[in-house]
C-alpha cells in the first residue's frame, strides 16, 4: 500500500466521521438508521424508524358508543404535537389506551417500532418511558413536595428495593434541579396538599420529569394556571422538545399557538378519529373544523 493511498483513506475516514457526528446530533437514534443489523434490547423501545408512538386503527367503544373510531396517529421522535378537539372527541380515552388504562376493542399501538403497548400493564408502560399527566392534578397530597419527587425518581420500583432505598448525592442533585425548574424549591418541605392548583400542576410535571420519560403525555397541563404560569409552562415544554417526544392535549388556543410556533403540526380529533392535521393557522381555517367547533 502506497503512502498516498493511506493518506486518502485517512481523509475519507475523517470525512465519514464528521458526517456521522453531524447527523448524530440531529436525530434521537444517534445518526443510525433502520437496518437489519440492529439488536433488540428487551424493555427498550427502538426509535431508529423515527417514530416514537404509533397508533393504528384504534377503536374503543363503551356500551356501543365509540369513544375512539379507527384512530390512527404517529408521533415522531422528539416531536411536540398538540392535539385539540371539542369535548368528548376522545382525547382522554386516547391517553388511556396509550398508558394501558383502557384496552381497545381493535387496533394496534406501539412505542418505538418494537414494543406493543397493548400487551403491557400501566406500571410496565411507565417503566419503559411513557409519562402521563392527568387532567386533574394528581399528586400525593399528604407527602411533602420533596417526597413526591423522590417517589417519582427513576429507580428500582420493586418493593424490597424500596424498603432499603437510600438517596445518593446525584439523586438529591437531580431532585434539587427539578425543584428549581418547577419553582418549588422554597416549598420543598411543604405538604403537597397545601399547594395552589397551579403549583400542583407544576409539581406533577416535575414528577414526570423525574421519571425521565421518552414520551410525555400531557392532558390539559395549563388548566387553572395564571397567564404567567402558562407562559412559563410553554417555555418549559419548548425546552423539552427534541430530547423528549411530547403530546399535549389542550383547549387553550393561545397556549397551543405558543407551543407550535406557527410551524408544528396540530391534530384535531372529533368523534374518536382525526378530523384534520396541519399547521394551527391552516387547521383553524379548515371548514370542517370550524363547523365542529362552532356548531352547524
Amino acid at each position, binding site marked *: 500500500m502506497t503512502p498516498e493511498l493511506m493518506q486518502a483513506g485517512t481523509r475519507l475516514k475523517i470525512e465519514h466521521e464528521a458526517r456521522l457526528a453531524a447527523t448524530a446530533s440531529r436525530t434521537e437514534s444517534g445518526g443510525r438508521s433502520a437496518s437489519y443489523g440492529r439488536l433488540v434490547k428487551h424493555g427498550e423501545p427502538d426509535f431508529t424508524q423515527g417514530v416514537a408512538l404509533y397508533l393504528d386503527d384504534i377503536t374503543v367503544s363503551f356500551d356501543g358508543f365509540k369513544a375512539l373510531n379507527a384512530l390512527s396517529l404517529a408521533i415522531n421522535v422528539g416531536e411536540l404535537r398538540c392535539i385539540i378537539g371539542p369535548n368528548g372527541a376522545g382525547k382522554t380515552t386516547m391517553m388511556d389506551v396509550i398508558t394501558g388504562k383502557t384496552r381497545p376493542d381493535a387496533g394496534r399501538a406501539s412505542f418505538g417500532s418494537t414494543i406493543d403497548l397493548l400487551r403491557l400493564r400501566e*406500571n410496565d408502560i411507565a417503566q419503559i418511558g411513557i409519562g402521563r399527566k392527568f387532567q386533574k392534578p394528581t399528586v400525593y397530597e399528604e407527602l411533602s413536595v420533596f417526597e413526591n419527587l423522590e417517589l417519582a425518581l427513576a429507580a428500582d420500583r420493586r418493593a424490597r428495593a424500596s424498603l432499603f432505598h437510600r438517596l445518593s448525592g446525584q439523586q438529591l442533585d437531580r431532585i*434539587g434541579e427539578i425543584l428549581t425548574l418547577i419553582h418549588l424549591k422554597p416549598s420543598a418541605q411543604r405538604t403537597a396538599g397545601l399547594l395552589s392548583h397551579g403549583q400542583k400542576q407544576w409539581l406533577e410535571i416535575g414528577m414526570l420529569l423525574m421519571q425521565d420519560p421518552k414520551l410525555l403525555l400531557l392532558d390539559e397541563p395549563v388548566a387553572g394556571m395564571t397567564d404567567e404560569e402558562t407562559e412559563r409552562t410553554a417555555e418549559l415544554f419548548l425546552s423539552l422538545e427534541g430530547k423528549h417526544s411530547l403530546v399535549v392535549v389542550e383547549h387553550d388556543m393561545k397556549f397551543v399557538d405558543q407551543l407550535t410556533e406557527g410551524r408544528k403540526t396540530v391534530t384535531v380529533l372529533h368523534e374518536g378519529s382525526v378530523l384534520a392535521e396541519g399547521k394551527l393557522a391552516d387547521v383553524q381555517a379548515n371548514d370542517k373544523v370550524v363547523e365542529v367547533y362552532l356548531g352547524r
Partner: protein
Amino acid sequence: MSAVLNSSSDFSLQPRRGLLLGIRGWTGVVAALITVAVLVPVLNLLVPEGSALHLGDYYVALVGKIMCYAICALAMDLIWGYTGILSLGHGLFFALGGYGMGMYLMRQIGRDGQYKADLPDFMVFLNWKELPWTWTLSDSFIAQMLLVILVPGLLAFVFGYFAFRSRIKGVYFSIITQALTYAAMLLFFRNETGFGGNNGFTDFKRILSIPIAQPSTRMVLFVLTGLTLIGFFLMARAIVHSKYGRVLQAIRDAESRVMFTGYDPIAYKLSIWTLSAVMCAIAGALYVPQVGIINPGEMSPAASIEIAIWAAVGGRGTLIGPIVGAFFVNGAKSWFTQVFPEFWLYFLGALFIAVTLFLPNGLVGLYAKLTSRSKKEDKEVRA
C-alpha cells in the same frame, strides 16, 4: 442552575431521617420496656399482696390482653391508616393464630381432661377415634408456632393476591373481608371441622409442660406480649419511614399516579397486607394462653369491626395512635362492663360517632391540637 448545584449535593433539601424516633420517642420506648420487663413483674410477683404497691393479677391479665389487641390495632393501622385499605376481617387472622396456639395447648392437656383420654375431650365426646389430619403437627410446639404464622399468612396472601389483582378497592374490599371472616366463623362453628365447634378450646393445663396458670408462667407470657408489641412498633416505624412506606402512603393518596409512575401497587399492597395479617395472628397466639379460651366468636364480624374502631379512636396514620386507642377503648370497656354493664354498647357507639364527627385524627390528633394550641398561646403571651 446546574453549575450552582454541582459544586456540592444539596443535602439541606433532604428531611432528616434515620434515627427512627426523636429523643422523646426513644425515651417512651425505653420507659415502656422498663415497665413491661421490670416494673410489672416486680410489682406483681415480688411486692407482697397486702402492700399498697402490689399489682393485682387481674390487672396484669387485663393489660396483657389489651397489649394483644394493641398489636392488632397497629397491624390495622399499617393497612388502613397508611395504605388506605380498610379490612373488616382482621379478626379472622387473630382467631386463626389463636386456634393454632389453642391446638397445641389442647394436646398439652394430655390425659388430664374429663375423659382421661389421649384425644382432646371434644373429640371423645364426638366419638372420634383418632386425630383429624389437621392436627398432625399439633404435638410439636415449634411446628405449631410455624403454622400460627404460615396458615394466616398464606390465607392472607392468596386472598390478597386475587383481590388486589382484580383491583377490588374501598368499600367492596371491606365487605369481602367481612364476608370472609363470617364464612370462616360458620365453618368453625361446625363440629365436623374438627376445632371444637362453638365451644372452641378451653381448660388449658400446660404450655411447654409448665403449668399455665401459675403466676410465673403468666408473667412470662405478659412480658413476651409486651416485648412483641414494642418490637412490632419499632418495625412498623422503620417500615413507614422507608421509601416503601412512602409508596404505601402514595397508594392511599393517589393510586393511579403510583401506577403511572411505574410502581406495581399489587406487590406493595400484598406485602403489607400479608404482614399485617401475620402480626394479628401472632397477637392471637399470645392472647389465647393468657385468656384461656378461643372460640369462633373471635371471628364474628363485630370483633373485626372493633379492631378498626380502636385504630380510628386512637388516630389513624400515626403509629402510637392505635396503641392508645386499643388501651383507651378496652380500658373503658372493662370499667363500663363492671359499673354499667347494660350501657357499654351505647357508649361504644357514641364514642365512635363522636370520634368520626369531632376527632378525625383520633385521640392522638386531639392531643397534638391541644399542645400546639397551648404553644401558640405561650408565644402570644410572651409577645
